[in-house]
């Protein structure tokens, strides 16, 4: 399992990276492995307001659906539309396949660094 050190993580298994004030958000390697084959991603739209700790979309695997919880509050400025046709990108490259970008960030959830997140995942099994 891979936990890049340049990212922050949530306990609901999203990752976030801040690039020039924009929060880039995806799901972790641990999350994609637990989900299994991702077959559909329900994305928000550019301009939607998102709130830290609340749902901004969902990912569906063959087995189940999981909510995507936003690590930050702000406004969606980009969505990765490639995921409409290739949701499996989340399995194949979880840290390359970002899901949304959020600007005007006003608030953020409790975020873990890579070491703390890895320890958290180890506990969850």
């Amino acid at each position, binding site marked *: 399992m891979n936990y890049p050190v340049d990212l922050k993580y949530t306990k609901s298994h999203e990752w976030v990276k801040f690039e020039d004030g924009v929060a880039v958000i995806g799901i972790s390697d641990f999350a994609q492995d637990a989900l*299994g084959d991702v077959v*559909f991603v329900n994305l928000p739209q550019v301009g939607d307001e998102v709130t830290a700790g609340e749902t901004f979309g969902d990912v569906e695997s063959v*087995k189940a659906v999981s909510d995507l919880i936003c690590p930050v509050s702000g406004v969606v400025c980009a969505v990765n539309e490639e995921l409409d046709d290739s949701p499996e990108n989340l399995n194949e490259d979880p840290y390359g396949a970002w899901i949304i970008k959020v600007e005007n960030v006003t608030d953020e959830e409790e975020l873990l660094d890579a070491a703390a997140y890895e320890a958290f995942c180890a506990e969850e099994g």
Partner: protein
Amino acid sequence: MSERKRTPLYAAHVAAGATMVDFGGWEMPIQYPAGILTEHLYDRRHCGIFDVSHMGRLIVEGPDRVAFLQKVLTSNVAALKPGRAQYCMIPTESGGAVDDAYLYMFEEDRYLLIVNASNTDKDLRHFAKYLPEFDCKITNVTDSYSSIAVQGPEAEAILKTLSGGVDITGPRKNDLGEVQMEGHTVRASRTGYTGDPTGWELFIDAKDVLWLWNRLIELGAKPTGLGARDTLRLEAGLPLYGHELGTDPSSAEIPIFAVSLARFAVSFMEEKGDFIAKDILASQKDATEKRIVPIALVERGVMRAGMDIYCGDRHVGWVTSGTMVPYYVFEGDTPTDRTGKRSIGFAYLDRTLTESDSIAIDVRGKHLKAKMVDKHMDQSKPPYGRAIV
């Protein structure tokens, strides 16, 4: 909580990296590292193998075995000949299903009845209520007698390699056989739960089942977990107890004739005589208020069991099973390397609805367009089962 049971192949599943889950009290592989989509596609194109040793295997023997089975099953047991199997239901007194089952006649003097793993104990308690009236005996051989399903276009070639070229069974669905495979006695049934035009279920002593599993893998078959078993049966339009049989999302009993397979599973032949819920079942024929039908999502999304279905503003039923299922794109009679995915399932819908009615599924607050379909897969052109998209 009693401890979860394990099949003799448990260690092999774990060693192969399978994700193990609780399934009806058994610790079973839901998927192997390849994943559900890959396992599904491999079965359709090559050969999938499934550990079905968790399913309940019951031997029914004794002078009154036929009379007993005629009473507690819906099929005409007297019509079953040695070397053949038949699908049947175990009816409740009110015309629902205690379980669905397969009855095998490998020998003249006894029957093998295979029931769902999660229902085995319940079925045995149900049978015990009727057994005192009959001179016959039921023995649960689940632990001593194991089973592997071998399904898909390459199943026959792989099995004939093990049998030294001898036919495994006759050519018809539900034909049974017994063959020697490299010194081991294996019984086989031309049946399956994938809808593949060719497939067998094998029975072997529990002590030999690991040998058989490993040989099948050496010959090119791939282990397939419960996840792909579910997507394969869904694509094939086969019901699953707990979804299409049993009770609906409002906890009401689903009448047996709500399921189209009931036509093959229930017999009203004079030879069969009286059986549990016979009159109620006769009144259900083509007359249940709701029925189970295959449906497909037209808009993008994924349907799931329990979702509500509407026709306009009117609530007309529920999704009973649903997920996203992969398929191969065919050119003529040959599968290409191109694949697609679609969300399909079963719905329990008002009988008055037809394919021309527009229906929508409430997918977490959004009403997505869906359609009733005749079937999801064409099983009539061996060796491939192909998606009807």
